[in-house]
């Protein structure tokens, strides 16, 4: 019987009451007394020299409070990059300056040039139109390979080229990998593009800066996935405000998908300007602005090769990837194509030798950074497309080829620096095959054929590394931050519990699932547990939510803090029951003395902690509040198998997804309904990438897909009813809940399933010349591939 309470129960999301009834409190709902509004004047050319910004006419416009330009930020720090990658030759990456407002040059359409602060948003915008710019347009670099040619215009004049780094991983293995290829019985090669995506969270970004001249405190309200990280980056690197004088609040946030991890210019601007003008400053991003300022995702161009021996065992893997950084380094951009991508190239397979080369390139485009999956979708897509192609070339069943090469012994140290602690890839594949009725496929294909359609089936695996990560390890890899998580558990006198977590919920349902864990551990109703997050003033220093890390890292911190609470409460109970604390058991909110009927309720113990009349004051402090910081000793490794069935209309090239099945191993599951929801959302994003979404620039760096008229988001009728399963469980071996994380899996595992299915359909339809089609598989692209 499914549980109705605590860990494992599909408790209804408590936050939905406010979200679905319009009672959420988002950043744009925050309006402060005396608030002003800022409008950013942004570059409409991709690359240009900024000769003059004449604000004189604009200053005289009605309502203008003050106009800022790059000059105002000359003494201020630039936006920092949080990860330094070391290249193949041991040199640090090239790291350009990233000013808050453009200085000297503009480098992408959307680069902010001036900021007009006015009494109303309309006045700010009116005045911005009166600013006179003298910009000398320069030739833009958009294509990565062209950007690396010797005569390419440089995005940053002070760098030696547009190459950020040339990374080799593992560089020492390169020779051995090349030798294995020389010896291979078969080599499969694939060149592909991982298309650039725009994140499109439902809530656009917003920032409100406030300054209290009486106390010299600054506050930033912002749409962030990690308010403490913003406080640290902005306070220490940009504005020079110590953390005790800076508060960052990320209230209800309407989706992030990675794009709200990063520290953006607008956040620093509002905080800075509020202090300058001594009034609150608000910025609300328009949807059009979001397309040209939110960090984009993906944008890799890859050549990947697989070597196999005569028995079809994978013997080596080699890749060469060009990764677009855009015009500046967004906060964690360098880590995405390297440590979040190269380390996953083993996939579910025991390939002994792997070499990954990544060239990160600056172009005159919006910066690119982590987006749902970050690096792992790119790795999975290449590998799972490649294995499918290899199976086709060898004439073997793609599932069999995968199974033959699965990792089966755990822990497993890959040749790309990570160690999978546990997993069972056959189990998820078995479950998937059970879900999809593979044997019935031929009959379904025959039916489609009779309707004039081509049917195909795509199957693939994925593995990802979540729960980022051990601080010591990421520090070695170049992270300029730790990656632990924190929680404070505060028990009130009457027994209610408040958990202050460093994780941040922006759609994931933490307020429900985190409460389930604590309620379960103590044995009280979930309603007795409240989860507080998103405000640096009342939560312990935390690293926030991304990389599917909240339950694995933040949840573990919360478990540790709750354990401390239970230990202390047992001591109090032992005192009240006149027993030894080692004999005290806690079950269903009652402390009992083992083997007796003596008991005391949770509420009596918590009351005693705060009204310590009968209390062991000489041994124990009063009160019941504990904090824990948890630093994991490994990543977690969710894995699974996905299947997609498609039908193609050969007359138009239109792909319809008939069914999609996902069998995931997320370790232990706290709330199955929320987990299913996370998978559903991830699948929609993965299907969006595979069939619809594409950020497209012309050769001058103008964004062609700059609105929903041209950027296709998946809609309800683009996706099928999903079959999802997470009953295959190999609990994570190194965190207390045995959990792995589920937030990104859907987006990681699904693109190759869709593309494999389309290629399968075309081959079955006789179009064996189509080895690959680059995403998104729009009707036009599929049709033109079919024409040969």
């Amino acid at each position, binding site marked *: 019987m499914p549980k109705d309470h605590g860990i494992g129960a599909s408790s209804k999301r408590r936050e939905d009451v406010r979200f679905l009834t319009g009672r959420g409190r988002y950043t744009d709902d925050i309006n402060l007394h005396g608030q002003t509004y800022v409008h950013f004047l942004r570059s409409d050319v991709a690359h240009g020299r900024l000769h003059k910004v004449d604000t004189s006419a604009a200053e005289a416009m009605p309502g203008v409070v003050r106009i800022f330009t790059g000059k105002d930020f000359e003494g201020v720090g630039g936006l920092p990059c949080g990860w330094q990658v070391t290249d193949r030759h041991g040199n640090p990456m090239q790291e350009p300056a990233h000013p808050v407002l453009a200085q000297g040059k503009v480098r992408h359409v959307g680069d902010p040039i001036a900021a007009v602060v006015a009494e109303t948003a309309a006045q700010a915008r009116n005045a911005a139109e009166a600013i006179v710019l003298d910009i000398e347009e320069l030739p833009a670099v958009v294509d990565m390979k062209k950007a690396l040619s010797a005569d390419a215009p440089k995005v940053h004049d002070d760098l030696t080229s547009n190459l950020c780094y040339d990374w080799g991983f593992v560089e020492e293995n390169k020779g051995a990998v090349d030798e294995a290829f020389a010896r291979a019985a078969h080599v499969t090669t694939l060149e592909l593009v991982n298309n650039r995506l725009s994140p499109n969270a439902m809530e656009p970004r917003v920032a409100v800066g406030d300054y209290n001249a009486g106390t010299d405190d600054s506050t930033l309200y912002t749409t962030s996935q990690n308010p403490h990280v913003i406080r640290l980056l902005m306070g220490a690197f940009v504005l020079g405000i110590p953390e005790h004088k800076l508060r960052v609040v990320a209230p209800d946030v309407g989706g992030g998908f990675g794009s709200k991890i990063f520290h953006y210019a607008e956040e620093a601007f509002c905080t800075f300007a509020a202090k300058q003008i001594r009034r609150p400053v608000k910025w609300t991003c328009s949807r059009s602005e979001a397309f040209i300022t939110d960090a984009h995702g993906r944008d890799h161009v890859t050549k990947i090769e697989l070597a196999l021996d005569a028995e079809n065992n994978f013997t080596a893997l080699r890749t060469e990837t060009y990764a677009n950084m855009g015009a500046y380094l967004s906060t964690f951009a360098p880590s995405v194509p390297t440590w979040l991508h190269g380390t996953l190239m083993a996939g579910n397979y025991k390939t002994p030798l792997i070499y990954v080369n990544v060239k990160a390139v600056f172009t005159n485009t919006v910066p690119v950074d982590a987006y749902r999956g970050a690096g792992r979708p790119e790795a999975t897509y290449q590998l799972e497309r490649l294995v499918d192609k290899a199976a086709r070339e060898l004439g073997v069943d793609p599932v069999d080829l995968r199974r033959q090469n699965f990792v089966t012994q755990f822990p497993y140290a890959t040749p790309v620096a990570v160690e999978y602690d546990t997993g069972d890839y056959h189990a998820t594949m078995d479950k998937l095959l059970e879900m999809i009725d593979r044997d019935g496929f031929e009959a379904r294909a025959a039916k489609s054929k009779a309707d004039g359609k081509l049917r195909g089936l795509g199957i693939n695996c994925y593995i990802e590394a979540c729960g980022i990560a051990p601080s010591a390890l990421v520090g070695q890899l170049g992270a300029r931050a730790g990656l632990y998580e924190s929680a404070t558990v505060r028990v009130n006198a009457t027994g209610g519990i408040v958990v202050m977590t460093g994780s941040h919920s922006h759609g994931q349902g933490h307020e429900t699932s985190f409460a389930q864990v604590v309620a379960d551990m103590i044995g009280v109703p979930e309603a007795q547990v409240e989860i507080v997050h998103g405000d640096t003033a009342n939560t312990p220093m935390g690293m926030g939510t991304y990389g599917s890390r909240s339950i694995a890292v933040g949840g573990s911190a919360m478990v540790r803090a709750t354990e401390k609470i239970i230990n202390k409460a047992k001591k109090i109970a032992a005192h009240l029951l006149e027993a030894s604390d080692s004999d005290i058991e806690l079950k269903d909110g009652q402390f009992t003395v083992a083997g007796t009927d003596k008991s005391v309720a949770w509420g009596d113990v918590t009351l005693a902690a705060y009204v310590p009349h009968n209390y062991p004051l000489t041994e124990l402090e009063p009160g019941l509040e504990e904090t824990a910081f948890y630093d994991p000793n490994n990543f977690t490794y969710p894995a699974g198998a996905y299947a997609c069935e498609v039908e193609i209309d050969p007359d138009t090239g239109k792909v319809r997804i008939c069914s999609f099945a996902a069998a995931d191993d997320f370790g232990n599951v706290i709330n199955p309904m929320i987990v299913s929801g996370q998978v559903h959302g991830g699948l929609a994003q993965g299907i969006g990438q595979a069939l*619809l979404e594409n950020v497209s620039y012309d050769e001058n760096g103008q964004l*062609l897909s700059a609105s929903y008229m*041209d950027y296709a988001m998946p809609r309800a009728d683009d996706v099928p009813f999903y079959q999802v399963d997470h009953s295959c469980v190999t609990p994570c071996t190194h965190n207390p809940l045995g959990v792995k994380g589920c937030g990104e899996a859907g987006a990681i595992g699904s693109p190759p399933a869709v593309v494999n299915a389309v290629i399968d359909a075309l081959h079955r339809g006789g179009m064996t010349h189509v080895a690959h089609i680059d995403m998104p598989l729009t*009707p036009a692209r599929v049709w033109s591939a079919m024409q040969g």
Partner: protein
Amino acid sequence: MYNFEFAKPATIAEAVEALAGEEAQALGGGQTLLPTMKQRLAAPATLVSLNAIPEMIGVCVNEAGEVCIGGATPHATVAREAQAQYPALAALASHIGDPAVRNRGTIGGSLANNDPSACYPAAALGSGAVIKTNTRDIPADDYFQGMFETALDEGEIITEVRFPVPQKANYQKFVQPASRFALVGVFVAKYADGVRVAVTGASSDGVFRWHEAEAALSADFSKAAIEGLAAPTGAMISDLHGSGDYRAHLVKVMTGRAVAAAS
């Protein structure tokens, strides 16, 4: 959006008068005009709403048996009220945009705007409709003059559109994946005196008639009749959603489907 004055006349005559003012512009459903104003690409001094003029709203049948649609009639109303007399036209209206767009957007606004990917221009041209304005009647064949270009003069209002009802008709829309406007849309209508085929979405000259297909279908109204035809050439649109060749191919596919589905 810049500030503007707002007028809401109750008769066509008042509307015409209001539109004679400096930088005045007609407002239908605002589904095209308001986004343009929000982006500050349009800045009329006065908006003259046509939404409160009873004589411009509604669907009826005249003595000649033509379906007459008031120029300010929203798509949703056409979808509902033209269903009995002209089901192909009602079906077209019912697939424009989403419910919000259909409840606000009007036939007059759509035809006045003449977006090269819009649906109504295909129905009007494909039906040989007459666009009635405050000053004259304009046959559809003279009305459409290239993308975003029409025969309308400054301040002229579409008050009604009259559609002769065909024996059979159908509209096939292949959607552009992002906007869901027509990547290619084909309206086929079979009249006693011949077949009309109007194509939207495909050409940078805007909606056009595919005369070769009309001739072939007038002789033999079957999908097979157009199979031997070359896809139309001309100024096919090539953009990030599809090449000109792809659009030309789709014109033929959609024409065949419209013929097969015509009822």
